[in-house]
């Protein structure tokens, strides 16, 4: 048991660095920043897997050792405890006067044991009656609770492991009006656990009908996000209207669909000099602040020369001498699309992956700059840009974790076990009648309450005389 405790404390200590250094799976940007600011230190830390701490081999090693050690501790004790069920308490010791709460009673021997047995049984003690003595014990459930708690911990560890081996987790950005089909190719990114197969995915489809965000007019803080979707499971069956909110995901068995983030996609139409439509549609922009000042990029590789637009979308446009143009409220009240138009080589053929939200302007030159109101057309020389409108987008996280139900059961049993073991008092009481009447008791771990119990027994036994 000492080993298990030491391993548990090691697990606690080992988890500390993960809260002090950024983690790749939580905040990859912060990790990159850390590498930029402390290159040497970062390399060393990376060798120790500090940036992927909770999936690192050494962290897993502690975790697995703890798991084995816990099993090694708890299983033998469980068997022992099961064997002890229904067994009688141990014999009365020879010298009672060494025990806690020892007392000699002022009463005749006759009938004492009968009376004591009755009282003990009424108070739900296990009673072992011998010729001249009784030994009684109560509070076996302390150990039962204790074992239940530790067995539940094992169940939780198993559930966590199952979550790591089975299941999947992915994200997708959808504009209002878009349709999503749950296959790996529909995701912006998805990761599968080791033993998860594509065929295990729930075959549902979603159509984004409407997204509403409301904000507090005083603080600009969001007060509610509501997403309406038409969902079909399996694909092709009748669509059902469903609502998804931040704290109430859409659930299909072990798969849940969460509303994680939202923003705006301005809708634009771009024509070349001849008036031919080059591009028309919604472009997803990334929010930069609480008022949803959003940035994005419109790339037109098919025009020659290539055109790239670095753009921002302001839902409620405002202007200040220090900040320039910015958004002063997250809802669309007075929208603007700010574009700077660049001409040259977009660098898309270089093979280096590019962000869809940014334009690499190193091989381009700027040919125009404009702030557009809704339905305004801007002629940038090589063509025209029409700011047609905007749509909301939502970021959905879709998670399949088959282990979590077991973790929940584990957690519930752990609490029940803990309560039982911490609030059950285990104690023994003895009565001996060899010429005189003696009683005594012993409480495990010195828990209080034994004295009162002995006093009550004494009263009952002595009360007979009167």
């Amino acid at each position, binding site marked *: 048991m000492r080993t298990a405790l030491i391993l548990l404390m090691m697990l606690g200590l080992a988890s500390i660095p993960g809260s002090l250094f950024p983690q790749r799976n*939580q905040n990859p940007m912060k990790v990159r920043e850390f590498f930029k600011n402390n290159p040497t230190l970062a390399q060393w830390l990376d060798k120790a897997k500090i940036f992927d*701490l909770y999936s690192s081999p050494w962290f897993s090693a502690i975790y697995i050792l703890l798991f084995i050690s816990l099993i090694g501790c708890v299983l033998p004790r469980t068997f022992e405890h099961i064997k002890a069920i229904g067994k009688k308490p141990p014999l009365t010791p020879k010298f009672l006067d060494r025990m806690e709460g020892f007392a000699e009673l002022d009463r005749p021997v006759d009938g004492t044991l009968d009376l004591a047995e009755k009282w003990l049984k009424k108070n739900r003690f296990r009673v072992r009656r011998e010729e001249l003595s009784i030994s009684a014990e109560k509070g076996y459930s302390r150990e039962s609770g204790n074992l239940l708690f530790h067995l539940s911990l094992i169940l939780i560890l198993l559930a966590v492991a199952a979550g790591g081996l089975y299941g999947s987790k992915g994200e997708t950005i959808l504009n209002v009006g878009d349709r999503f089909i749950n296959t790996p190719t529909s995701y912006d990114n998805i990761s599968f656990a080791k033993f998860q197969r594509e065929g295990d995915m729930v075959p549902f489809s979603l159509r984004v009908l409407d997204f509403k965000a409301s904000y507090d007019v005083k*603080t600009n803080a969001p007060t509610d996000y509501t997403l309406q979707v038409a969902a079909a499971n399996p694909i092709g069956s009748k669509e059902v209207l469903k609502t998804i909110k*931040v704290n109430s995901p859409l659930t299909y068995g072990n798969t849940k669909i*969460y509303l994680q983030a939202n923003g705006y996609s301005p809708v634009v139409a771009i024509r070349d000099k001849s008036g031919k439509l080059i591009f028309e549609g919604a472009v997803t922009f990334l929010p930069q602040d609480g008022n949803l000042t959003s940035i994005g990029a419109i790339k037109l590789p098919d025009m020659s020369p290539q055109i790239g637009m670095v753009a921002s979308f302001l839902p409620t446009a405002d202007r200040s001498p220090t900040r320039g143009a910015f958004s002063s409220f997250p809802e669309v009240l007075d929208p603007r699309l700010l574009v700077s138009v660049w001409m040259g080589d977009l660098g898309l053929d270089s093979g280096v992956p590019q962000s869809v939200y940014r334009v690499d302007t190193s091989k381009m030159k700027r040919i125009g700059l404009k702030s557009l109101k809704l339905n305004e057309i801007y002629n940038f020389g090589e063509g025209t840009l029409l700011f047609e409108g905007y749509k909301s987008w939502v970021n959905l*996280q879709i998670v399949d974790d088959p282990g979590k139900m077991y973790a929940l059961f584990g*957690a519930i049993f752990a609490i029940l076990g803990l*309560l039982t073991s911490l609030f059950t008092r285990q104690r023994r009481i003895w009565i001996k009648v060899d010429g005189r009447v003696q009683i005594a008791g012993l409480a495990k771990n010195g828990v209080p309450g034994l004295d009162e119990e002995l006093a009550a027994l004494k009263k009952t036994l002595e009360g007979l005389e009167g």
Partner: protein
Amino acid sequence: MTSRNLAYLSNYSIYSAMFLYTIAFFAHAVEVSFSVKTTEVSEKTSFDFSRTDRAGRIGTAMMILGFIFLFAGVILRGASAHRVPWGNMYEFSITGALAFSGAYLFALVKYKLRWLGLPVSIAVLLTLGTAVTVLYRPSAPLVPALKSTWLAIHVSAAIVSGGVFLLANTIAATYLILDRMEERGGRSEWAKKLPSLETLDQLSYRLVAFVFPLWTFAVIAGAIWAESAWGRYWGWDPKETWAFITWVAYAAYLHARVTAGWRGRKAAWLCLFAGSTFLFNYIYVNIYGTGRHTYSGL
């Protein structure tokens, strides 16, 4: 009454509570400092013994009144925003102070704990003082991520656990101070009225054993909430990590006492360590930390 009036009323209640706790603090200070004279002088002179006792009783009365006002302040704060009053660090702090002084008053019914009034009133005043000066935020609605029944369940369990953990810490610290005094040849006069080392040792253990299941529940409730809001029940977010560390530290403390038979000094130090991981989680992670609990911060 409008939300704004309720918010003002809440602020006034909290200022009044601070005023009452200040009186309690002085009353307890008088009780402690004058009991020096009492024990030294009382044999020769007719020094009025009841004088310090009365100061102590005034202290307790002020603590109860302060608790009532603080309670009203917390409730009004919630009423002003039509929600449970646990949306930011200001609100956590005032509720935490409430839980802490509540735990003290609750324990006062059962044990002779009045001597703790001095440290408790100092701690409550410090917490409230920081809350109203540094952490204060106007009453506002909740962000969508916090709109869940689990807010009430998870946060209240965490706050109550915190209040009791810190009370156990205060007692463990008192134990260590008195222990040192006795080692150096006996308690100072003022400390003679305080309970025996054994009582303190038992008391801090009992508080921890009592509240450890609640803390376990707070962590589990948080995990259930995280599952429904963030898509995973455990993600080693800094707050989660430190909640786990606190849990491990108290688990170690309980095992050390029950199984390894630790008592006294070693146990008190372990208790202090475990409590400080809780404080670290509250202060450091809320203010400097990153992760998904940040809206709970400033």
